[in-house]
């Protein structure tokens, strides 16, 4: 009796089991990978705050405070010697003896308020505004990550820098993939002499010592050049180097999928080339492409960082993580003002997140 009930139950369970699409399966496997999910959340937060940098940053990218160079980070507090507060506040600091070191001015509290008015900026580059997420009334200052040599708020600059450092990867990868998919697709689909020519050319590109090529190109650009133009050129150069490897991978994928039996089956049934490409070839490359994108994004971010660090990339007063790190080059700065390394920590977090995310995606998309 009991056995029969159990059997009935299991039959029911099988019947009720909904069919899992590859997409669902992927989500289920991905959500089990905690490191990858955390990375995805971190990256989402980073990109969102880069997008809303003007609003989140309490100060403008180039707002200087000549009275407070190399100011140490100011913590937001809920209590001090005179007891607890119901609202968070910061203390005021005065410059002390010598060049460095600021001392807390006792007593005075500057309460942190939300949606304060401050420096003017354009939200998403369009909507002019002067509201900031948080801030304190003058003459109080809120330097969450301290200030640099010119007394500029590093927290604000890290956010503005993220706009450049993070977007360069995205734009670069889009261009690279556009070239890589087209060239690799053509090469793999047509094969023969076309394939041969394209592949030999891409090997030529890959054989270039790429970083020196980039350095050389960036070095001959006039110094007076607009930063935005420089930014675009840098993306183009990075993508030009990157497409070749991508094209080879795509070509290999197209070549192998084209020979799969299900493609042969489709051909034997008179399915058109277009339908074969869109229904059979491309959907089966998607998982590889997604993983490849995630894993190669850090390369672009690091490329920008390296160029800007060497002074060939984004120029002052614009902020990028690379040129912010440039200010943290010497040991005196590092030992006295360790908060100057904040952009380095951001790069570390971003690159690590992308790699963990890429690994997670690969495991979830391709469990074999």
């Amino acid at each position: 009796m009991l056995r029969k009930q159990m059997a009935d139950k299991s039959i029911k369970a099988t019947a009720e089991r909904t069919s899992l699409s590859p997409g669902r399966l992927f989500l289920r496997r991905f959500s089990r990978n905690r490191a990858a999910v955390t990375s995805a959340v971190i990256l989402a937060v980073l990109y969102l705050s880069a997008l809303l940098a003007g609003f989140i940053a309490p100060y403008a990218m180039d707002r200087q405070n000549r009275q407070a160079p190399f100011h140490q980070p100011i913590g937001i507090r809920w209590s001090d010697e005179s007891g607890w507060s119901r609202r968070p506040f910061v203390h005021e600091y005065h410059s002390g003896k010598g060049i460095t070191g600021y001392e807390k001015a006792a007593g005075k509290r500057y309460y942190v308020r939300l949606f304060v008015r401050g420096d003017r900026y354009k939200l998403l580059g369009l909507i002019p505004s002067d509201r900031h997420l948080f801030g304190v009334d003058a003459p109080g200052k809120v330097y969450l990550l301290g200030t640099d040599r010119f007394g500029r708020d590093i927290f604000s600059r890290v956010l503005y820098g993220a706009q450049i450092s993070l977007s360069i990867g995205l734009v670069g990868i889009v261009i690279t993939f556009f070239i890589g998919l087209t060239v690799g697709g053509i090469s793999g689909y047509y094969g023969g002499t076309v394939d041969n020519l394209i592949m030999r050319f891409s090997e030529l590109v890959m054989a270039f010592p790429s970083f020196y090529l980039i350095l050389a190109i960036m070095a001959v650009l006039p110094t007076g050049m607009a930063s935005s133009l420089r930014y675009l050129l840098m993306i183009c150069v990075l993508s030009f180097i990157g497409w070749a490897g991508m094209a080879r991978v795509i070509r290999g994928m197209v070549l192998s999928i084209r020979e799969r039996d299900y493609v042969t089956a489709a051909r034997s049934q008179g399915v058109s080339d277009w339908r074969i490409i869109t229904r059979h070839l491309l959907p089966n490359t998607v998982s590889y492409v997604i993983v490849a994108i995630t894993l190669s994004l850090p390369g672009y971010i690091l490329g920008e960082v390296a160029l800007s660090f060497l002074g060939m990339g984004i120029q002052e007063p614009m902020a990028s993580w690379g040129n912010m790190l440039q200010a943290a080059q010497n040991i005196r700065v590092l030992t006295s003002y360790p908060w100057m390394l904040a952009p380095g920590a951001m790069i570390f977090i971003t690159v690590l997140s992308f790699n963990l995310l890429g690994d997670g995606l690969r495991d979830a998309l391709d469990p074999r």
Partner: protein
Amino acid sequence: MSAYKLIEVRDLVKYFPVTSGVIRARKIGDVQAVDGVSFDIAAGHTMGLVGESGCGKSTLGRALLRLIEPTSGSIRYQGQDILRLSGRQMRPLRRKMQIIFQDPFASLNPRMTAARIISEPLEVHNIISVAERNLEIERLMSMVGLDPSHAGRYPHEFSSGQRQRIGIARALALQPSFIVADEPISALDVSIQAQILNLLVDLQMELGLAYLFISHDLNVVRYISHEVAVMYLGRIVERAPVESLFAKPRHPYTQALLAAAPGFGKDQRQGPVLEGDLPSPMNPPTGCRFHPRCPCAMGVCRHHDPLLEEMANGHAVACHLWSAYV
């Protein structure tokens, strides 16, 4: 054997050019995968095709459907030479000639449900109204022994035997009269092989299908075929009705194959076991292609290529040992 000839293959040749060179490819030779093959398949009958790996069996099967473009020769389907047809003219014929694959994992698109896999040919050829399509999918699935309620599942949710059934349902969707079965059971578990084999036999009875059944398993070929062709290095060396071939194999190669096959009774003639490997099809031996491995090779074999000559009651063999008796 009174049925009319559905497929007539004459002197079919497929050479794959071998090239070298970095930028501009130079042709340095040919792989003679299929080299002058002729046979007929009658409607509703099965031609078994056996031979070692690399002898050109699969190439021949695919060339019949023009999935690989043959180099020369002719393939007639109901008297019409399909090699002269353009791609567009070929489309209606594609419905009549289908293929079943060896590997049930590679032959189904992992991103499509069983229903979509089976319905794709229906959509492409627009044979059935959208309203009736689901019914047709159900009919096809139950015809091959699948539960129609699993139509929404993806290939990875099926066992290999079930996947093979999906592949068969897909081939049947267009109501073909000829199916190339390219080692359809060699990748399956032994217990499932028999099921699929019986399914193929049942479908043949029911739908009057003709098969070209490619296999290297002689037992299987003996079970399913009406006629058997033995291939060696791109050539058919012996072709005979199944009883005749297994009762009295003539070609030394066929004899060796039968001797090497497990599971035949003790009364089976004990032929020599073959030594060595298949020679390179890029550079086949002169004369009879089998002579370097043949236990009965004579002087003439080294220089003269034997023709496939018919002896009695449809038994044909390409061997100098037998040409004397013709």
